[in-house]
């Protein structure tokens, strides 16, 4: 997958930068490697002309390599230590202690850029993700949502089943918030000041992490990794945010000028989606983590293992209900990361979040990186919380 780390000037600029990240270039998937050298590949991302194909990056000497796309064909060759950039793929290979030899090969798939379905800078964006194989039409969006009196500057998040240019943000087909915001959609809490951010994308979903003052908020827009067959679950669309209110209608949410919408709010209404809610739910809208079920219903998922009506999230439901405070790092000091799985009482196990995992908070700090094999993860805390059960990790590469 591809990622970008940067700084936005405020919540509106963050939306613009996300739009550029998604639509100006294709994404890459996790690379594989076979060979002798132990150098690394980083900075993988597509270009403006990316298509769904597989690139073979083959060394012909210790430093020189060829680049060949399964559809695009041969591109210009490259050199280890020098950034490689084309309109199809970009990366940098760094030599390791063991030199590459002829035949050493990286393989990586690319996806086309996401498509902008509505670009209204300063207001809202709606995108269509192509899927990792360019076979899907995954519709998600975000809309600015702010109030000077309440001193909040947020995004309202969205997932859809189709797009109609004549309909507004909240009335697109299959909207996660339901008709008339019957199940108000999750919110992503930001501010109108400088925002360090992490964007992590592929062809199926994007994850955004933002640092607001000293707290960390995150949103997830797109498909999960479904455990079911595409026939049984063809559109496993998830929308995860950082704030929801257990309201049957939007009228049950705080008033437009309420400071409860701020990033500094303290309560279970402000939690990141892997730690969704943690207390009993009265509505699907009480959960920061939503998944569109095969039935077409948007279900809320709760990090609480006594939840019997709505969905649950493992293992964070264990963490918040039974505790995971005894979980320490591995014997060698490294960390293990567990999948975050969505299931419910119906009984169905829908799948796991793509590139988001659970990690112990023992000896942990936000922004730590964890390397497991060739995978690099960044650790995120649950908003302002820093106990041992309050961390998750986002896979960068």
């Amino acid at each position, binding site marked *: 997958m591809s990622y970008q780390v940067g700084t936005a000037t405020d919540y509106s600029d963050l939306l613009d930068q996300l739009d550029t990240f998604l639509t100006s270039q294709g994404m890459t998937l996790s690379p594989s490697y076979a060979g002798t050298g132990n150098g690394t590949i980083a900075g993988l991302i597509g270009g403006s002309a990316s298509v769904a194909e597989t690139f073979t990056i083959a060394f012909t000497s210790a430093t020189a390599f060829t680049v060949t796309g399964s559809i695009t064909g041969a591109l210009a060759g490259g050199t280890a230590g020098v950034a490689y950039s084309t309109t199809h793929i970009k990366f940098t290979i760094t030599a390791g202690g063991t030199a590459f030899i002829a035949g050493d090969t990286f393989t990586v798939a690319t996806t086309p850029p996401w498509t902008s379905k509505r670009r209204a800078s300063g207001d809202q964006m709606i995108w269509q993700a192509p899927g990792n194989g360019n076979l899907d039409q995954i519709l998600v969006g975000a809309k600015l949502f702010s109030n000077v009196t309440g001193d909040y500057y947020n995004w309202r998040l969205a997932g859809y089943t189709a797009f109609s240019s004549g309909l507004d943000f909240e009335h697109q087909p299959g909207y996660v918030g339901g008709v008339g915001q019957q199940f108000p959609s999750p919110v992503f809490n930001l501010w109108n000041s400088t925002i360090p951010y992490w964007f992590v994308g592929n062809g199926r979903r994007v994850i955004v992490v933002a640092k607001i003052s000293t707290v960390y908020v995150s949103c997830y827009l797109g498909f999960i990794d479904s*455990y*079911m*067959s595409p*026939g*049984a*679950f063809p559109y496993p669309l998830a929308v995860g945010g950082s704030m929801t209110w257990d309201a049957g209608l939007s009228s049950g949410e705080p008033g437009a000028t309420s400071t409860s919408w701020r990033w500094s709010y303290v309560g279970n209404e402000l939690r990141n989606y892997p730690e969704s809610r943690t207390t009993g739910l009265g509505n699907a809208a009480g959960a920061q983590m939503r998944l569109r079920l*095969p039935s077409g219903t948007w279900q809320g998922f709760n990090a609480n*293992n*006594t*939840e*019997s009506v709505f969905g*649950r999230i*493992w*293992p964070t*439901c*264990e*963490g918040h*209900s*039974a*505790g*995971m*405070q*005894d*979980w*320490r*790092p*591995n*014997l*060698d*000091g*490294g960390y*293990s990361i*567990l999948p975050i*799985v969505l*299931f419910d*009482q*119906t*009984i*169905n*196990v*829908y799948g796991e979040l793509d590139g988001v995992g*659970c990690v112990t908070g*023992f000896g942990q700090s936000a922004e730590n990186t964890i390397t497991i094999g060739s995978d690099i993860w960044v650790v995120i805390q649950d908003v302002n919380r820093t106990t041992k059960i309050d961390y998750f990790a986002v896979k960068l590469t």
Partner: protein
Amino acid sequence: MAYATGVPTSPVDLLQQLDTFLAANGWTSDRSAVEGSGWTASLHKGSTYAHLRAIVAEAGFATETVGNGYALLLYLSDNFDSMQPWVTQPGNAPLESINTNRMGVAMNLAAGPFSNYYFFTDGTNDNVVVIVEKTPGVYLHLAWGTSLQKAGAWTGGMYFHGSTSGYYGPYQAFGPNVPGFTKTTDCPGCVNDSQGFAAGFVLCDVDAFTGKWITIGDLVSGQFYTGRHGTSSATGTYIPSSSIPRYAQTTSIGNPTPFQFAQTSQLDGRANLLPVLWFTGRDGSSGNTGGFSLIGTLPMIFSSNGVGNGFLPASDYVLGPDTYKIFPNFAVLKA
């Protein structure tokens, strides 16, 4: 990767057929011989030595006092001595913390015959799983291998586990519906057997506890404990006291149903197979105070609730390139 099935006529026949199977699949048989009224077999692969004993109206491990038991017993060490009986084989074996008695695990049996056996090894033959259908629908297991699938780097790796602790293995006096005795075993590798004693062991250097075996159990003192305990993500009859990422905090399949028992989706009938994660206790003042580190997953074995949810016991289940055999509460990689 090897697989065999057949009908064992007795505990001795079971062990003899297992010895033959393993000798043909990467293990060296050091001894397969009569011992007492039963049979013993020791086999090794590299420095992993599996010491097995079929008891027939006998006692088992030194601590155990039942004299009329029927079971298949197992422990590992890193050596073999043909002059020593099964119960005192040399090398680094799990020892009770208060003496030098070997500890181990068991598959509780009867005089036989039994319905079926299923023998499995993986692609390298490093890992072995033995399943016996003791009576129709009651499945028991033993398993061992040269190494867990490690999380991180640590010294050690040999492991073994069974349906019951070695202590309770020979017991014959249980009533109906006791897991591991008169009912199919709990998920392999869970914390403690249904009677509260450890039924899993792993050789693992942990902090100041080095060169010794860890019990996957909740006891932290006495003869049924090696000096360090570990825990498991999978839950059986016994509910562990430690707080780690566990699949279930209760065995009741109610409302809500715990994650471990909610793994077969109704929408598509697919059974998810959960890896069994083992954790070791760290140095601490007592009990769970040192916390627990993930050390790895059990090879070939998975928690599953497929049986009873659309899958027949001992049926094959194909997932991608792999085939699993599904039993009540668990599944085994077959091919």
